[in-house]
Each structure stands twice: as C-alpha cells, then as structure tokens.
C-alpha cells in the first residue's frame, strides 16, 4: 500500500515475527555455533513443510470467519486409507496415493462446509464432530497399527531431492523434492487471495458475512470452496508427511491442530476472521518450528520446549490482540 508509514511497516505483525525469529536465531547461534548453518535451514525446512501446508488451508478457513479443527483427523484418514488400499491390493502408483488423499480431503471438506454453511452449525462444533467421526471410524476399521512398508513407488519419492549439501564435517543434508509443494501452494494462495474476487470474497465474508451477502457474494459457495480447498491440501500435506516419515500411521497427526492454529495466529491472522496474510503465516510457522525443533540446540531441556512454545503463543497472540484493541479504541478518521 502506498501511504503506509515506515512506522506502520516496522511495527507490523510480520516484522515483529521477523525480529523474534532473528533474535531467537542469534540466541541459539551464540550458544551453539552449529546452529547458524545451511544444514539447519535444510532440516528446519523439512521439519516445517507439512505444518506449512496444513497452516495454509487452516488460514483460509480462519480468514473466512470459520475454524477447522478436523484437519488432523482428515490428514490421518487421507494418508492411511490410500496406503492401506494400495498395500492390500498391490497398487503401486504414486498418483493414486496423492489423488485419493486429495479426494478424501475434498469429501470431508465438503462435509465441513455443508455443516457450517448449510446446516449453519458453529464451525468449531461442526469440525470437532467431523474430527471425532473420522477418528472413531479409523479406529474401528483399521485399529492403530501403522504400515511401515510403503508401496515402492510412493516410498521412492522420499529419496528424490532438490539438492544435497555436504557439511564440512562430511555429513550430508538433502532437501526433499516435496518441499516444492508448500512453496507453490504459498505463492498460489497468496496470489489468489490478493488478485481474485474469490480471494477478496473470503476476506469479505470473514469481515462481515451479512454485508458480503448484500453485496452479492455467494457466501455458501465461498465457504464450500474454503473448506474443500483446505481439505484438499490437508490430504496433500498428509501424503507428504507419510512419505517423509516413510510410514503410514493412522493417528500420529492427531492433536497437531493447536500448534498449527497457534502458528497462524502468531503470524497475524485474527482468530475472529477477516485478517490474515500468507507471508504472516509462513513466518508464524517458521517461528513455531524454530522453537519446536531447535531450542534443544540452545541447551533448553526438552520438557521446557512446550512451555516456551506456549509462551510464544501467548505473547504473539497478545500482540495481535492488543493491536486490534488499539485500533478499535484509537481516534477514528
């Protein structure tokens, strides 16, 4: 925007995230000189890429004024069901794996959208219900046994790399080709949000649903798009997770929703809807990922990590909330 003052830019949520990330990196780096290295960037990229994919879908849902706590369950189903089918029936096709994962995501996304936009349940209740439904169904049909020998074609992806870096110590660090997925998704979603009427519609219904309806947005259709898109990329992210872990676990991802939602909110997305940017979400995910994965390098005991993550969430969200409050109370122009 043209008329933004330098002060506004420097105190934006994005920049605050950047400051914290830089400060944290310096602290960890000063304690452990191994931290500031290409190797860290590669391991961190790999560690956060699935969270990033989930966070993008969830962000769209939150911006539209909703919330989706069902994505971990959807992800479990979307990674386990295709692999189970493939192993049982001897299918060995990577497109089948990704395709079915996406379709499963779409179906549950459509269910979420129907419950929130048509039946008009509060989104938290609707997606909690769907989450429980999937979770129970998974347990009933498949138990909790994981599949550790993935179909060959699928497993092969885990050995495809964008590049490999050899550290001075001789250790090698490789960046998976799957990393392209969140990169492309981020760019695509950012452009969609900013330059299409559909994207603006998502902001509009998150800002004031009634006003959006009066203005002529098809609120129901936009909600279907948002939940189904979020479902689809959840499926995509889930299959990535499965390949990165080289095993299909029917419940490992359960409980990851709080961390993802926290990363989004830390990144400046307002939980009440209408505000949020891809860049903020990327930074939020990086920040939370940094804390989760690298605090141990700074000598912080593992059991303190949860505490620190909690602290960052509380502080990060407080800043966003205080800023919103300040805007609400500030002199109007």
């Amino acid at each position, binding site marked *: *925007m043209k008329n933004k003052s330098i002060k506004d830019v420097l105190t934006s949520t994005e920049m605050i995230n950047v400051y914290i990330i830089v400060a944290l990196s310096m602290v960890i780096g000063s304690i452990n000189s191994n931290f500031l290295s290409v190797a860290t960037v590669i391991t961190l990229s790999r560690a956060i890429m699935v969270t990033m994919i989930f966070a993008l879908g969830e962000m769209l849902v939150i911006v539209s004024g909703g919330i989706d706590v069902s994505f971990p369950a959807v992800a479990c189903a979307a990674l386990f069901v295709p692999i189970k089918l493939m192993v049982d029936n001897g299918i060995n096709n990577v497109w089948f794996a990704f395709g079915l994962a996406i379709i499963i995501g779409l179906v549950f996304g459509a269910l979420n959208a129907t419950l929130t936009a048509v039946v008009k349940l509060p989104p938290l209740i609707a997606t909690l219900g769907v989450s429980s439904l999937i979770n129970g169904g998974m347990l009933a049909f498949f138990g909790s046994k994981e599949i550790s020998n993935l179909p060959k074609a699928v497993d092969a992806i885990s050995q495809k790399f964008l590049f490999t870096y050899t550290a001075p110590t001789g250790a090698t660090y490789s960046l998976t080709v799957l990393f392209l997925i969140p990169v492309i998704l981020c760019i695509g979603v950012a452009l969609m949000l900013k*330059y299409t009427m559909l994207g603006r519609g998502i902001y509009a219904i998150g800002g004031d649903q009634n006003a959006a309806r009066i*203005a002529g*947005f098809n609120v129901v259709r936009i909600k279907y798009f948002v939940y189904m898109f979020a479902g689809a990329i959840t499926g995509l992210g889930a299959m990535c997770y499965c390949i990165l872990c080289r095993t299909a676990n029917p419940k490992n991802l359960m409980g990851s929703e709080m961390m993802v939602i926290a990363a989004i909110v830390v990144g400046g997305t307002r939980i009440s809807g*209408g505000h949020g940017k891809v860049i903020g979400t990327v930074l939020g995910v990086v920040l939370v990922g940094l804390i989760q994965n690298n605090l141990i390098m700074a000598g912080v005991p593992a059991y303190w990590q949860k505490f620190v993550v909690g602290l960052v969430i509380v502080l990060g969200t407080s800043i966003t909330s205080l800023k919103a409050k300040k805007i609400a109370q500030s002199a109007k122009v």
Partner: protein
Amino acid sequence: MAEVFLKLEGIKKSFGGVRALKGVDLEIRKGEVHCLAGENGCGKSTLIKVISGAHDPDEGNIFIEGKKVENLKPIDSIRMGIQVIYQDFAVFPNLTVAENIAMNRALMTGAKKMDWKEARKLAIEAMEMIGAKMDPDILVERLSVANKQMVAICRAIINDAKFLILDEPTTALTAKEVEKLFKIIRKLKEKGIAIMIVNHKLDEIYEICDKLTVLRNGEYVSNGDITEYDRARFIRDLTGRDIEEIKYSPEEDENEILRVEHLTRVGAFEDVSFTLKKGDVLGITGLLGSGRGELGDALFGLAPAQSGKIILNGKEIQIHSIQDAMNNKIAYVPEDRLTQGLFLERSILDNTMAASIKNYFKKGKLDYKAMEIATDDWIKTIGVATPSAKPAIRTLSGGNQQKVAIAKWLNTSPDLLVLNGPTVGVDIGSKSDIHAILHRLAKGGVGIIVISDDLSELVQNCNKMIVMRNGKVAEVIDNTVDETTLADMLSGKQGG
C-alpha cells in the same frame, strides 16, 4: 414536475399471518428528497425490502420509470439503479476504503479478478463526486461512523444509482456530521438522483426533505409536500394521537438529592460541580468528546472520577466501581442499549430482572412467581407493547427495548438514575412515554440525569441543563433557552 422514478400501488405483504404492509402507495420523483416517516414497526423496513427486491409483495404493483416490474430480485433492483444504504452500512471493516467502494461494481459486472488500480481510481472519483476526503488505502475499521457512511454512499453512487434509499442515516451522527451528510444529499439531488430517507427526527426532516410519506402500522396514512405539514399534523399522522409538547417545569423543592463537587478525571472532565434537587430532571449536554458521556460513566463507576466529592441524599459516597454505584442505589442506562444495556436473545423478564436478581433469591432458590409479577407490573407501568414477558428483546422495537432497559434499573429502586441518550432510535410515541416516566420518577424523589445531544429533548424535558465543553462545565442554564441558542452554546459560539 420531474419524472416519476418509482411508483408503488397498494403494496401488501404478510409474514405468517402478521400483516406488515396493508396496502401502501408511494411515488418518488427524480431529484426529490422524499422522507418515509413512521414509528418503529410501521412497516418501513419491509417496504424498503420490497423496493430492493428482497421481499416479494403479496399484492400490489411496482412501476420503475413507468414500466411495470414483476418478480423483482435484488440484483434486478440494483441494475435498475436502486441502492439501499442500510443502517449498519454493510461495509467491510477489514478491507480498505477503495476496495469497499469498488467491490459492488466488480461483483455486478461479474469480474473474476481484483483490479486494485481500477478500484483506487473508482474510489477517488466517487469521493470527489460527493466531496468526501478519505485515504483510499486505510482500513474501514479505522473510520468514524460518519466516514463509514460516506464509504457506503460512495459505493452506492458508483453503480449509476438513480434512486438512493437511506435507512435512518443520522442515528449515529453528530450534529456537524449530519450537516455534512445533508450537503452531500443536496449535491446528489442536483444530479437528478431520487433519494428516500427513512427518518423520524422531525427537525431533520424539515431541513432536508421535499416530500413526505407517513406510514402507521403498515398502512399508508398521508403524503404531500413537506410544507403541508406542521409539527402537530406530522406528529398526529405519525402516532395517531396528539402529543403535547410542553416543557417540564416541576415545583421548586429545596431538598437536595445529589451534589457533585470538583469532580475530575484526567483526560475526560475536570472540576465539574452541580446540584440536583428533588423534582429536577437535569440535562447534561455537549458535543461528542466534551466529557458528557464520561461524566455519566464516572457517576456509575465505569471509569471512576479521580478526585472530587459526590454527595447523594446528604451522605458523601465513594464510587470506585460499578459495584459501589449499585450499592449506593445509582442506576445507569448506557448509550448503546444493544451492546451495553440488554441481553438481546433473552426474554423481557430476564432483562427486567438482570440488575436486581439477587433480591429474588429466597432460601437459595429464585422466586419465579415474584419475578413474573414484578415484570408484568413494569410492562404495564411503563407501557411496553408486548403480549407477555416471554419474547426475546431482539423482537421488540427500539422504543420498547429502551423501556425494558429502563425498567431493569427501576426495578432496583434507584435513588439516582442516569440515562445516556435515553431516546436514541426511539420513535416519537415511545419517546413521549419515556419522558413521562422520567418526570413521574423525578416528582417521586428519584434524581434524574439525562445525558443527550438531542437538544429539543433536553429543552422540553429538563428543567436544568449543564453544557459541557472540553471537559469543563461551560454553562448552567434553565429551560427558558431555545434550541438555537443551546446549539451555539455547545460549540462555544455564545456565552462564556
């Protein structure tokens, strides 16, 4: 005479047996400012929805520019140049001014892409057209109510509007902002745009409107040039009864109820002193930001005063919190009843009991029988139009809602009742009912303070007024003052 833009004949509309419109005629000409007047619940909103295509009438004909239209849908109505600006403006707080203004056009043309340059250009053009000055890149949540309205008007006129409907446009505006709005309306009128304003503030109607149509209970009552209506006829047509406009002048009484000395809250008001005697209805007025509202908040402990004395019925009291105020039998009807004064989804009974519920605990149980009796009493005493105490507050008209907000506090049998904007958005009939209640209470020995910027309300109902300017008491006057002088005092043009 200018061409007729819109003509309605015998419009009827019922909702599940309730007849909202019982045959309404209306004729709007190009370039005229037409007022649709009527008390709350008279069918104004339904009529607007019929015109905008949101409701299909059960019977009757609609003609737009001479052509009969059937089966009008919202998008058709917009394409024919009809634009409605709703009371809440329906703007997006999270989007920029430019985007808000350009959004509807983009949706109308079915654009798939968002063209930011075009949006900015359109917004600037529209703002120039009505003489509004706003930063097109600022988020609407940072705008004042008046400027949000400007955004809504800009958005309406870029869609080649021929007929603009403004639903109660002045409710949330200050006097100065109203003036500015009227200037814009006159500008649009010169361009040949027909304008219909829904309003029930008499002074404003006389100032801006050419024509008037009055509805009552869904029925067409009368229409004509504004010059054909004097105040008495207007009020009679609106309410169906004669309402006398006499000033409130109680008998002198030396018993002092409230004495406030040197009350100060930094940044809000300073050194405020006044007294309130038995029978007094004390008015506190001033422009927005003069400290009038803050003074009310301080008396009720919302944002307590930092220094000064408050003496109620001869006893000095300390008010540091709402609890203190309530313990000292002070009651406060806040400015915004919808967000601060009422539980909209709850029943009349629940709301009436909300401030005094602890009086109904008997042996650890709530005495529902007593609560029902008390609520029914209040419904009768203050004249809430409702079949029972059960309906949710949301379903009542503004006037009836406000009566319940007042009843809630009266049920605590207060010694001092402070009302901030007691009749904002309340129709004339209920307004006069509320005023009568206040007078009755004052005579019965309850101290009444009315904080308001509705000058005619103050002059008629308060026997004593305090004018505040920049946080200080600028004038203390009685009700012999006229509205114009009072308005000048508010802005500091007159007096010291």
